[in-house]
């Protein structure tokens, strides 16, 4: 209850901020699979933004040794990280701590971000007993919303994958699928989408959250699966 109260108070504060002055951290994770209960994080990539400005030097990229040895073939294919490569990676605990201090209380942005957050949340809770509950913005939701508003062409509705969305917006997407490259592409997508929002006079964070904060309960993992075109 107290937590909830704090959160809503924070939300009120943050909602009044201008998007252009707000710190964002664009995140992407690489996973052993998409099952929230069985699978694990194998890499975290993140890049900072201030408003629409992408801070190229302000990046975070770590691969970790997953707590489960089980590997899905398909995720190996997606990320091109082989099990033997992962063996050499360090433990997750210190990396999660580093990630938390990197992300601070920035708004977390990502493509189907709720999935990444739910994995991060679980790993962070179980490994270092910390409640990771950031405000978040899903670029896919902004994209779909802009289509609905008629700002982006209706035929874009079929695009779900990061790659297709990037291409539809004229962003180079040649190096997809390592977590940091994906985060960087997501950041560029977010950068462009913010311009469309600005055209609609959407300047503050509250409006942005209303459009793009994923409702974690009702969100189905199917979206993420579609997004990865599995």
């Amino acid at each position, binding site marked *: 209850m107290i937590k909830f109260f704090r959160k809503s108070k924070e939300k009120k504060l943050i909602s009044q901020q201008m998007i252009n002055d707000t710190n964002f951290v664009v995140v992407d994770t690489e996973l052993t699979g998409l099952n929230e209960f069985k699978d694990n994080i194998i890499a975290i990539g993140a*890049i900072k933004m201030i408003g*629409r*400005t*992408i*801070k*190229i*030097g*302000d*990046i975070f*990229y770590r691969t970790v040794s997953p707590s489960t040895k089980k590997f899905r073939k398909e995720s190996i294919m997606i990320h091109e990280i082989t099990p033997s490569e992962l063996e050499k990676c360090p433990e997750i605990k210190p990396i999660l701590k580093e990630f938390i201090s990197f992300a601070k209380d920035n708004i977390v942005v990502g493509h189907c971000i709720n999935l990444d957050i739910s994995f991060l949340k679980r790993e962070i809770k179980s490994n270092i007993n910390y409640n990771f509950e950031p405000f978040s913005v899903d670029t896919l939701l902004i994209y779909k919303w802009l289509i609905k508003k008629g700002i982006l062409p209706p035929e874009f509705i079929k695009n779900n994958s990061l790659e297709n969305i990037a291409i539809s917006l*004229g962003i180079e997407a040649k*190096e997809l699928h*390592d977590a*940091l*490259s994906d985060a*960087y592409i997501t*950041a*560029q997508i977010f*950068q*462009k989408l913010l*311009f469309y929002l600005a055209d609609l006079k959407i300047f503050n964070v509250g409006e942005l959250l209303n459009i793009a904060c994923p409702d974690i309960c009702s969100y189905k993992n199917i979206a993420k699966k579609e997004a990865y075109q599995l």
Partner: protein
Amino acid sequence: MVKIIEDVIDFLKSVPPFEFLSDEVINSVTVKTSLEYYPKGTYILLQDGAPSEFLYVIKKGGVKVFRRVENEDIVIDYRSEGDSFGFVSLMSGDKSRANVVAIDDTICYLIPKDTILGLINKYSEVRDFFLRSFMNIYLDKGYREEQSKRSITSTVDKILFTTPVEDIATKEVISVTENTSIKEAAKIMCENSISSLIIMDSNGIAVGIITDKDLRKKVVASARNVDEPVKNIMSYPIIKIDAKDFCFEAVVRMLKYNIHHLLVIKNGKIHGIITNHDIMMLQGLSPITIVRDLEIQQTIEGLINASKGVNIIVGNLISQGAKASNITRIITEINDRIVKKIIQFAERELGQPPVPYCWLALGSEGRKEQTFKTDQDNALIYADPSPSEQEAVQKYFLEFTKYIKESLLKCGFPPCPGDIMASNPKWCQPIKTWKKYFSQWIYTPKGENINLSNIFFDFRGIYGDLSLEENLRDYLLNIVKDQKVFLGYLANLAVRNKPPLGFFKTFVVEKSGEHKDKLNLKIKGIAPIVDIIRLFSLEKSVRETSTLERIDSLRNKHTVVRDYADEIIYAFEFLMLLRMRHQYEQVLQGNVPDNFIDPESLSNLEKKLLKDTFQLLSKLQDILIERYKLMII
């Protein structure tokens, strides 16, 4: 390394001035860099707005830089991928001087002010690039001093490492058989004034060498019988060096064997001899030694030999980063000496001239802007003779100028294809005729007359009675300055060749023929600057003939030059240097030097500077058109 950082580094590496920096340094820049996206139509910087806090490097798209003056937009520039903007305002901290608007969806890398200032302080290449390419006011003295120091300390080594042995070796090798007597050998050395003699065995193989030193030590000092065969006193084995080896290698061998002579071998055969004296001469191969050498020559053949080192000197100066104006000054000095020497020979051969005269250099020679040996462009003025001696005087000078023309040809100066030479009776005239010519050209400025004035009005007295030259110049400057129609014709000529820049600054090059896809530096770049400055000089009665000296003299006299002097000087120096480097390469390959460069062969930095230069030129032409509106046809 992280992929996205790597991508930025790769991009910056292809962009001046970052291309000069190590990966490590570029990496340190990259981590400070942000990425911004500007949809088409976004104003990135505003005229009179806040100073720029970043250097903007365009990753994708393009921008227009323009100023709005009295409700009219004046486009200053278009910039595209790899170009940058925001520098001047960043450096000066002044409000932005122009609007910058994205003319396409544009992505820029933003490098913060502090990072750029750090680079400028630390890396001279970066400083050099920004200072130059933004044609600046920030060029300070300390920087220039640093540059010149650097080139002085490395001069000698560079020459040793870049000059092949065959370039300076004595080609004539005199040899004797090993059984020749010492007396006979010494006689041969004296007759040929050489300091060494190669000794051959009965099979014609070089087995040893005798030198002055051997004669002194082994013969004179030890009272040896001079009828003994030379093989008794020769030094052996003889040390050889390949003709293609660099002189440095020769120095190493001489030191190693403690000898002063090496036999130069080319394709397995004896090619010549190189001595420590040759090396010393090479190290002392300065313009001064050449000039001194020219001074003592008494024959045309001597001059031909003495002037041989000119190309090596030019090559060395280019590789040491000398300014084009310094190089042309040295070439002018040397060529002037050759001409003076030849004129002296002519006086010696044909007797003293009957009346005072002055030898004039015209065109590039008159402007002291010659590069490699170019056509003869010259003329002769003589004092007005009395009617009775007119014929004899004319006859003398025609013979005189013919002698000079042929001697210059022997020294490697081909005749002028348009026959603009003193040997042409038309251009060998008393001063009153010259005045008549000049006034005709100025008062009836038609086709040929305009072209002639462009060549002749750069006249410069080289030898003889220089008061004749002064007299003619007084006359010219006096009659030309108010001749608006004539000056308008000159202006018309100066704007005829538009700088070769299309939209987005792609080079317009030759469309067909031998020089397809090449850029004619002379016609498109150098000549328009020369023409504009000549015109201004005639307007303002400037007596200097070289373009750079004219600019200096015009600084306080001409408003356009006052505003643009530094930029024009820089652009001119740059074009001249580019041409000189190109021609030097051609000379090295044994080709005839020309003015056609391949823009694709230029580095990114050179391309950028060339574009800047052409933009300046275009601006100057626009000013000229504005000033001479009525006369431009």
